[in-house]
Every structure is written in C-alpha cells, then in structure tokens.
C-alpha cells in the first residue's frame, strides 16, 4: 500500500455516509526499536470534511502567519478531525471505512520539537 493511495481517499462511516476526505496520515516513531530509528507506525487518519486540497497544516498547528493564508486554510479545513487507526474497519481503493461508533479526535499536532 502506498501513502499516495491512502491520501485523497473518501472517508466513509459504517453506514456508508461520506464524512470527508483523508488529507493526511498520522505517524508515530514509537514501534519496535531498531538500530537508527524506532519503527514508525500509522496511528490514525486525518479527515477534512470540506476539502481534499493538500494543506499546509494550519488547522493542526498553532502557526498563524501569514494571516490571510492561515485564515483561509483554517476555514477550508474547518472541522478537520483525527480517527485512530483502531477505528478503521476497512481500506478500499479510494475509500476508507470507519468502524461503527468511531471517535473523532482533536487533529492538533503536539508542539513540534525543534530540529537542529
């Protein structure tokens, strides 16, 4: 499975109702430890109800500059939520189905650690 196949898929609930589009896949470097980096696991999918255009993360981070672009992006991706991988029932071609009673979580990213 390729990441690009998952991105842009329709997100559908157990009743077949479309709830948005998968705009990103949340990863966590927390799996089995390896020589360099621990295994990177998929922890959830980010779903935007209103737009499938690729985003710059304004709706998930507390960046707010430049103002107009930040505002527009937040509006475009208003109501973006995170669905944990455990709440995913099936992945089809171009479609992801969530389990009945799945939880829509806050999409916010933890404050990113500063690299370098």
């Amino acid at each position: 499975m390729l990441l690009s196949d998952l991105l842009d898929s329709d997100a559908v609930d157990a009743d077949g109702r479309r709830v948005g589009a998968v705009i990103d896949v949340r990863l966590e470097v927390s799996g089995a430890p390896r020589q360099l980096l621990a295994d990177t696991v998929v922890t959830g999918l980010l779903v935007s109800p209103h737009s499938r255009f690729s985003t710059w993360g304004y709706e998930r981070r507390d960046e707010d500059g430049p103002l107009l672009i930040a505002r527009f992006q937040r509006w475009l991706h208003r109501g973006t939520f995170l669905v944990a991988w455990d709440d995913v029932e099936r992945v089809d071609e171009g479609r992801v189905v969530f389990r009945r009673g799945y939880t829509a979580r806050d999409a916010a990213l933890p404050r990113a650690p500063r690299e370098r």
Partner: protein
Amino acid sequence: MTENPDAFQTDAAPPPAGQVLDAHLHVLDRQVLDRDDVPVTTADDLELDGIEVGAPIEPGSPRPTVSAILTGPQLVMRLFGGHAPAARTIRIPWRLVSEVGTVIHLGVAGDALDATWAERWVSRHLIGRIPGGRHAPE
C-alpha cells in the same frame, strides 16, 4: 477554530509516545540526505506495510508501519496517476532513516543505494570523463 462542533465529538488525542509526524505534511516531498549530508533524492512516496485493500481489519490487529521511501518512477505516478510495476520502483528501506526533520536523514552512505544509480551512471560515464570533472573547483 472549530466552527462546526456538532459534526463530531472531539476527544483529546492520547499523549504521544514518540515523535509524531503527519506523513504528507512532514515527510512527503522532503529532501533525503545521506550520512554525509549529500542529497540522495526527494521522498516521492511512502510504502506502508500491513494494509490489505478490501480486507476487514480485525480489532486489535497490529498497526501498519512505514516500510520504505519510494522514488524514481513513483514521482511520475504521483504526477499523472496510475501504478508503477513493483519491480521498477526504487525503494529506500525505512530502517535506514536516522532522523526526520525538515529533511530526512539516512544513516548510510548514498552511494550504496539503488536510488543513486542514475547519479552514479552520469558521473561515471559523462561528467567524470570531462577533464577537471573529478577535481574541486579552484
């Protein structure tokens, strides 16, 4: 920030155990550098292990993992759609990644990777043969 609070119920995400990355935002299309900071390629796509198309996922089954950075023909696929034959894709195994920041750092030398064959070919057969090609500029 949320204009439409009734649309779904929001819980706080559980506290993360390790570094949290959004694949599209933080990994895709970023520069891949080798151990010595030499550019290798751009992360054109990621390969995810443990997702079977169309098969129901049993509750409690292990979560999928990132298995490789894909490049080469994969860029064309992302530009124009479609799938490259698996044999033609160029993979950089994820276990070679040492750090993910604004660039993706590998823990190995780039020369050993399939991803650099075109660079090596051009270097060996064309650029390296022009006088001065193997010397630093003065």
